[in-house]
């Protein structure tokens, strides 16, 4: 919006992360003043370039310019998975839990370990006790409808404060399968597991208080599942059966709800006509 052009000479900085050492006389610096100043030189260069094989040179220059650009001017490249089976932590876990550690990848700096469903509590416990992953950072569910290994995935984030290391554990669970609770290992996972249950209906076995947390106890369905409708949810029948038929409670998205309504009838406003007239002149 207000991306005011900067002076081209200051485009690159000492503090950037390596690579870009060249002075940016690159044409990418789209500053009109600079373009004017360089006009003549450009014209000459153009004339010469016409003589030689134009396409090839242009391509080369482009490639060179591309390489010389600071990282934020290149097109982004999404980080990719690297196999991390030989990571010492993974190796140690493998030793302890054997086949329960299914795979391990390193992606964008985070270690990601797929764990068998039944072993997750034990893995968390050994991570906490032996490997100092004491901080319960996050737990959430993900829904992959129709996935073979299990529709749901529970993602755990653990943090090792002394080593500043984050670990992501993943557990697959099918519909109706329950995951062993880790709320007894890290008490911080208590509410997070309740939330995952609330949102996805993933049951956690052995959890001390497996109730809904954010939604109310009479809510029908699990809203973060992919097949959950965004509009037209009945919200009352389960808890007020005496008032509402099944799945016939007050439904969101109806009545005076947030549906776009037809434009209101034009109202004869005394000021409106004058305003229109003035605006017509302008």
């Amino acid at each position, binding site marked *: *919006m*207000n991306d005011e052009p900067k002076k081209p000479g200051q485009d690159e900085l000492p503090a950037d992360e390596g690579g870009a050492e060249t002075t940016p006389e690159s044409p990418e610096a789209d500053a009109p003043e600079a373009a004017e100043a360089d006009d003549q030189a450009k014209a000459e260069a153009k004339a010469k370039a016409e003589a030689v094989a134009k396409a090839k040179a242009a391509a080369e220059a482009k490639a060179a310019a591309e390489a010389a650009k600071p990282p934020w001017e290149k097109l982004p490249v999404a980080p990719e998975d690297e196999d991390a089976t030989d990571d010492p932590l993974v190796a140690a876990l493998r030793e302890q839990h054997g086949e329960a550690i299914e795979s391990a990848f390193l992606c964008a700096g985070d270690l990601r370990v797929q764990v068998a469903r039944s072993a997750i509590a034990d893995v968390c416990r050994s991570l906490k006790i032996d490997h100092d992953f004491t901080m319960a950072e996050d737990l959430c569910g993900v829904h992959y409808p129709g996935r073979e290994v299990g529709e749901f995935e529970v993602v755990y984030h653990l943090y090792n404060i002394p080593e500043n290391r984050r670990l992501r554990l993943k557990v697959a669970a099918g519909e109706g399968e329950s995951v062993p609770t880790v709320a007894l290992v890290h008490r911080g996972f208590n509410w997070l597991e309740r939330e995952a249950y609330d949102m996805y209906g993933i049951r956690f076995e052995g959890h001390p208080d497996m109730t809904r947390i954010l939604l109310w106890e009479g809510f029908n369905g699990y809203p973060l599942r992919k097949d959950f409708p965004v509009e037209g949810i009945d919200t009352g029948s389960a808890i007020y059966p005496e008032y509402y038929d099944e799945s016939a409670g007050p439904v969101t998205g109806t009545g005076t709800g*947030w549906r*776009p*309504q037809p*434009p*209101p009838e034009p*109202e004869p*406003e005394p*000021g*409106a006509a*004058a*305003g*229109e007239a*003035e*605006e017509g002149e302008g």
Partner: protein
Amino acid sequence: MKRFLDKIMLLDLFAGLGITAKHLFKKKVTVQYPEERREPTHRFRGMFRLDEERCIKCTLCARDCPIDIIYIDWHQEVNPVTEKKEKVLDRFDIDVQRCMFCGLCEEACPTEPKSIWLTSKTYELATYERWQNLYVDIDELQDWKVRPEYTDKEVV
């Protein structure tokens, strides 16, 4: 010793009383709203404005709106003067009651200068009737000034 003195003489409490007493005589920061008005800054995101002539009917603003409150209908028409096909707006409505003034529509607008902008410095959007007064059509978008400024006398 100092601690003891403090305990007996309640110095800590008097320090607090001193600060409040000092503020008793400081300049007050209240802005007396309907009479005094704070001028919004230049980037302040307030009420929408639309310039129909600049608008190229690309509907990017409607597409970029996170809550889909911009409704645009247009049709093509042959301009009798230039004899070229032109897009003509049928409807350009904004349901301002749901608007969260994020400014993404303004950012999406490809024309230069922008044909929809929020920096109109109008922020007195409260109304008594939601549907009637906060569903603005193209006329109101082009001239919001038909609504009077708030005063402390105005009681409907």
